[in-house]
């Protein structure tokens, strides 16, 4: 896997935007926007199922699913399934000339192992893509396929598969709540100067399925969270990375919160408090406070793997610890992504993603 990643990285450094620590921002999201890409604007009106599909006129987009699982062996697990779309130009055709590139990331975390797989695809020839009726997001043999009934939202029931060199998983997901729109009705601001993306989630999945590990199959159950996001320039030039949390509280509430770190010390935060029924409340910049507690040396860099997370307005003051502090995604643009446990004012589980740590 390693040699493959490194080699593809050589060919595709544009995607990795290798200099994560520079003022260019993470994953190229902070690059100067080429002319012609559509920019997100406030007060979006989503239309489903069309908006579950791709938006090729936007520069970047993803279908991002994380799941906290418990095995029949009593151990905790986590999986990640992500399909990225990146546009070289804001158009799409149905042949090789289509200027869109697809990238898939799959992760599987156990208390002492972390499996990663990555794959890339051209658009236009059928190796990867997203169809809306019926909903199917795929790259190679990885699939996120809707099993929802005609009248339900396409994302309310899914099957999910992915495979790496030494692992695979097949899961069934059933949502028992509505889609949740982040930020201002799905318009998610990323900086004080107004950089933004369209962003909605489905945080209400219950999950069951099978993980295939080198030692054998494990039956699992748990919860999952799907993010849909697209934009053309979500990051400011001085924003060097982010810390993103999705929390499933044992009170059946959910929390999404992120901090965009600024090279100038001017960090930006946003969060959404989600009631058990799906009612979402956006919290303003500064309401979501995080403090690193423990730093783990992983992949040659110090990454904070235990945090204190506070939302004083909601009485939340917790510590998060990683299921596996070495949940490092050794991909084209490497980052940390893994399941976490919560303790303190609230208990529960969740997922943490951290980018831009040098």
């Amino acid at each position, binding site marked *: 896997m390693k*040699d*493959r990643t490194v080699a593809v990285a050589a*060919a*595709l*450094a544009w995607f990795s935007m290798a200099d994560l620590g520079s003022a260019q921002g993470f994953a190229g999201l902070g690059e100067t926007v080429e002319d012609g890409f559509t920019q997100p604007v406030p007060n979006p009106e989503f239309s489903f199922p069309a908006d579950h599909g791709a938006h090729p006129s936007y520069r970047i987009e993803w279908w991002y699913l994380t799941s906290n699982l418990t095995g029949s062996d009593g151990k905790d697990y986590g999986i990640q399934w992500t399909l990225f779309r990146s546009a070289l130009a804001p158009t799409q055709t149905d042949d*090789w000339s289509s200027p869109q590139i697809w990238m898939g990331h799959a992760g599987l975390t156990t208390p002492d192992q972390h499996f990663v797989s990555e794959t890339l695809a051209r658009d236009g020839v*059928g*190796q990867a893509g997203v169809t809306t009726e019926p909903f199917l997001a795929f790259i190679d*043999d990885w699939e996120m396929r809707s099993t929802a009934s005609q009248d339900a939202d396409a994302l309310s029931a899914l099957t999910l598969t992915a495979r790496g060199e030494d692992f695979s998983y097949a899961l069934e997901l059933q949502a028992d709540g509505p889609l949740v729109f982040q930020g201002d009705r799905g318009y998610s601001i990323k900086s004080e100067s107004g950089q933004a993306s369209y962003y909605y989630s489905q945080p209400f999945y219950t999950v069951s399925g099978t993980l295939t590990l080198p030692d054998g199959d494990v039956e699992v159950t748990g919860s999952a969270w799907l993010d849909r996001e697209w934009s053309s320039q979500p990051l400011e030039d001085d924003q060097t990375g982010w810390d993103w949390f999705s929390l499933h509280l044992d009170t059946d509430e959910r929390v999404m919160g992120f901090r965009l770190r600024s090279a100038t010390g001017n960090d930006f935060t946003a969060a959404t408090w989600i009631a058990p029924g799906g009612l979402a409340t956006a919290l303003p910049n500064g309401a979501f406070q995080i403090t690193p507690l423990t730093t783990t040396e992983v992949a040659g860099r110090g990454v904070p793997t235990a945090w204190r997370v506070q939302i004083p307005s909601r009485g939340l003051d917790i510590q998060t610890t990683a299921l596996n502090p070495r949940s490092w995604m050794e991909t084209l643009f490497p980052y940390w992504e893994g399941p976490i446990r919560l303790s303190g004012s609230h208990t529960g589980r969740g997922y943490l993603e951290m980018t831009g740590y040098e």
Partner: protein
Amino acid sequence: MSVFLTSLVALLSFWRRHPGQFLTLLGGLTLATALWSGVQAINAEARASYAEAASALGQDELDRLISPDGPFAEDIYIALRRAGWAVSPVLEGTITRDSGVIRVLGIDPITAPPAAQTIDLSATEDLRAFLSGRVYGAPELVATLSEGGFDAPLTASANLASNTLLMDIGLAQQVLDQRGLISHLLLWPSQHKGLPPIAEIAPMLDRVGPDTRSDVASLTNSFHLNLTAFGLLSFAVGLFIVHSAIGLAFEQRRTLFRTLRALGVSARVLVGLLVAETLLFALLAGVLGMIAGFFIAALLLPDVAATLQGLYGAAVDDTLTLRPSWWIGGLAIAILGAAAAAAQSLWRLWRLPILAPAQPRAWARASEAALRRQTALAFALIIAAVSVGFLGDGLLSGFAMLGFGLVGAALLLPVVLSALLRLGARFASGPVSEWFWADTRQQLPGLSLALMALLLALAANIGVSTMVGSFRLTFTGWLDQRLASEVYVTARSEAEAEALREWLEPRVDAILPIWNLEARLAGQPGEVYGVADHPTYRDNWPLLTAAPDVWDRVAAGTGVLINEQLSRREGLFPGDTIRLPRQWDAPIVGVYSDYGNPEPQAMVGLSAFQARYPETPRLRYALRIDPRLASGLMEELQTDFGLPADTMIDQASIKSISLQIFERTFTVTGALNVLTLSVAAIAILTSLLTLARMRLPQLAPLWALGLTRKRLAWFEVLRAALLGALTALAALPVGLLLAWALLAVINVDAFGWRLPMHVFPADWLVLGLLAILAALVAAAWPARWLSTRAPSDLLRIFANER
């Protein structure tokens, strides 16, 4: 130490007093090394180019999936990806531009395995540009194409073979007009576990291992073996010179050796010194030879490159790179050669009694017994040659046969000459004439090495020029048959082809489609052609063997034709069947000659071709038209129909291109031939120089008896001319046998075709005169030396002071 040094100075001082001999020795060794290393440099360059081409997309490391039926639909690629297989598509093909045949490589940089990433696309902008149409090519190709003829942004890259363009697979599909097709899939070295077997998803694909040797390398192997054989021949001829120069120096330094030994220098030291001297010469000549060899190679390489491109479609850089292995190899062969040439002299010195009479004799004066041994060896070699010829199979045994035969013939030469001279002596009248014949025979042993060299050079010359001449005659006749149509035109797309047919209909006598499919024939990459039922083929096509009603059966689709290469390689003849794509076991009804094409080929009737391979692009056409109207038609095609000039070619141009390629093919052989012949001339010169000095004691009595120095000198010249002429005469049958072997054995193995032999007696006459001239030129210097000897020198012979 001082003994060593003093002795060395004494030995080396000889060369200061004989600068001519010094130059001969150095020149001989330099020339031998130069020819050998030049050929090696060419071979090395070509092989490096093949390796580069083979590794262009990691074929030398990666497994591939190919279809025996040629290019396949990209849906199969997608099906494999969707099943989890890490594969990456490649589309490969050729296009023809004014500059020649260009290999087009289309890749998908997003899925390509690391080993296949020839071009560095790590910069965002480079990848973006590549995906949106940037094309990479070797610098020379880019320079040529930039002047026009290719409509895409071109970027030079030294990583690509010289005739190759690398582009995105999408663009390659357009350029090659193979939309939706790929020619093979590269397999990533590591694959995910638990995938369904490839055979279930894509049963039509075969998995093949890495190509460590490209097809081109094995095809061109024979060509390089040919060059190597020539290089070796030149080297051997060069060694004759070195041998005689060293032998001469040895004879002349006999007195010096005796003196040194008498002064207490041991045989061991003396031989050691001479070994050191030889080594010194070898190193000096080696370096000079390498430099000369480099220039020879640089001079010949463009022709070799053109030949390989024309004959095999193999791209070879025509600029030379200096490789360390080449330097070491060249110096080693110079040293080995010098050692071989000096061995005899050193051995004699080793066994020389301290106070041996330092009487210079005609060295290497062979006894009757020695001559008998040589004759026996010659016959043994000739018998070996004949048996290898009969029993052996393949190119190597072909060359072994040639080698044995040539050396055997050379060894036989002194015997034959001796017999001829004895015959000549019968017609002698008067004492001077009798002396002349007897003295010529007496000198034969001293000259025989040089004459053997001349024989080899002449025989090679006759053999090769007969082969080339026969080939040229056959080839031009064949071109006339094969290229019967007046104009050849290629449309750029199906739609254009359709319009083109309509446009042409009223304007030409016949439109003959030339549609072809790349496919594996008997396991080799080859082509299947569809041909129309038309008198153009019935009347002209060069069939070697044919079943009855051959053209009716081809037209009906119940029989196919194959080319001679395929027929010979696989032993297929009319009556056999050949497996064509789509599991078609087609009966063979004829074999046609197909010179200049290394690949197997089959021809099927057009209707059968269309029925079985309906998706093949129908782009190329041969047009029959009154030859006087051809150029007008081509103009109209450009102005009225709007086809670019590079999509069409007329009969005369294509013929001249073919002949040009043909001529260049043999430029190298011709050049090496001339060089070998001049080496032989130098060998004769050295031998005569050696003899002239040693023969003074034999000539002095004649002078004393009243023959003038001038007359004696003329005798020397006459003798050289006589020997040259006799050797040329002896070389003729050897050369013709060589030509036969080249045409009937080597060519068949190397290229896959057998050519009828034609003889060119006028050429022999020229060559015979050339041989005599070479001998005359070589004799002129020693003769002049003799005619200008002071009488006192001759008188001194009779004084007992030596």
